[in-house]
């Protein structure tokens, strides 16, 4: 995704072991707050949120010993900036078999920025079912919210300026686990 947008001097702020530890902590926090994670459904937002959701589910399963439903929730059709760019390819939405009605849905994404993606995800959820509650887990919160949205579980709070870029790379997609902080190249 937008590789040329990131300058070469991007520096890592989280490395693979950090990401693993952060996900373990978030998994424990979810179990703590949901008192056992019995009715938790994890929904990742494509592309990288889906991989994070799967990793979180594995950690939750090893903590609780029960199977945690994981799915994906594509928000492309619910974006508020569709008309600003050419038509985008649509990602996969896969809701676990038992649905989300009455469950605790934890949305999972890589970076929380303007909050508009999460706004779209909440709209998308409303068309699919009625969860008992919706929570949000992100790997990085970089600030600059444009909507009244906050995360329930944050891997790392990363104060940034708007000229900086945050890029999450995951081994499933990019071959390695890292979070890169760079400056936007003005081209």
């Amino acid at each position, binding site marked *: 995704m937008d590789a040329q947008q990131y300058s070469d001097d991007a520096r890592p702020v989280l490395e693979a072991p950090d990401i693993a530890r952060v996900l373990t902590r978030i998994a424990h926090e979810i179990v703590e707050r949901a008192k056992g994670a019995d009715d938790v459904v994890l929904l990742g937002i494509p592309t990288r949120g889906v991989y994070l959701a799967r990793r979180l589910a594995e950690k939750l399963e090893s903590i609780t010993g029960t199977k945690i439903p994981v799915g994906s929730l594509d928000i492309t*059709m619910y974006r508020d900036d569709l*008309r600003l*760019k*050419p*038509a985008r390819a649509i990602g996969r939405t896969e809701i676990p078999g038992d649905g989300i009605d009455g469950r605790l849905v934890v949305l999972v994404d890589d970076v929380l920025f303007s909050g508009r993606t999460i706004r779209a995800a909440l709209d998308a959820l409303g068309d699919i*079912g009625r969860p008992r509650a919706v929570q949000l887990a992100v790997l990085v919160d970089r600030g600059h919210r444009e909507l009244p949205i906050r995360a329930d579980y944050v891997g790392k709070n990363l104060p940034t300026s708007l000229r900086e870029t945050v890029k999450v790379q995951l081994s499933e997609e990019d071959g390695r686990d890292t979070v890169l902080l760079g400056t936007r190249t003005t081209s």
Partner: protein
Amino acid sequence: MMRHLISAADLTRDDAVLILDTAEEMARVADRPIKKLPTLRGRTICNLFFEDSTRTRISFEAAEKRLSADVINFAAKGSSVSKGESLKDTAQTLEAMGVDAVVIRHGASGAPYRLATSGWIDAPVVNAGDGTHQHPTQALLDAFTMRRRLVGRDEGLGKDLNGRRITLVGDVLHSRVARSNVDLLHTLGAEVTLVAPPTLVPVGVETWPCEISYDLDSVLPKSDAVMMLRVQRERMNAAFFPTEREYSRRYGLDGDRMARMPEHAIVMHPGPMVRGMEITAEVADSDRCTVIEQVANGVSIRMAVLYLLLGGNDSAATAPSTTRTEESK
């Protein structure tokens, strides 16, 4: 993606695969309790039908409504067209009303192309069937049905129909479905064979990217999908074959013929079927016949096409390769 969808021949392999993949995601919306996406909210789409149609018009309307577009239905019967209004004046009326896209079916081949390239109207144009020329969304939904059945729902994502042997049987001469399918299936890498009485094969067919045969029985055992075309009596003003009975004996698909097809092969029909003519009731009602599936897939395909033409901004869709000219702006 280009700006209009006029002909299946305009689609590149990548365009076609993108439409099929997008349709696969759109199909999932049909399984949800709320079968609606907000994507085209506030956009107005006009269905301009100068020729009778049931399934195509309803299919487009369902697709438009599932994407939350506002729909205006226009049928030539009972409109100012019957008072003698020209296509140009109708188009300019729609333009003045602020229509964001036009879906057009017309009895004259080339009418959608004229509408898209003449500068009468600024909106994207989708061809829903013009004369004996093209019916691109039908070809796309047929290819989608074949990919689902022959390759698989999830396995098929990103793939074309490379090496699949598709046979189209019947009234090729009057069939826009056949033309669109030959173009698209060739683009997707399939091997197409047309089977028809010599009188129902169009002039110039040797330039089409397909084989021609007059013997259905020799082609059937080598087909992955057999598409039966309707004998279009309303377009027939000459005697193309001696009797209907002779036609259905030589070119109709019955249970015995279907048994000679490979185990995995499917029977397709664009509809409406004429039972007893090109297809027997036994075949039409069998599990191998995908007619109903094709109708369901049609809605997904049309959602995908409308999303890809209208979902983004205009400037990006206006690629330099479009046929639009300076004065049309």
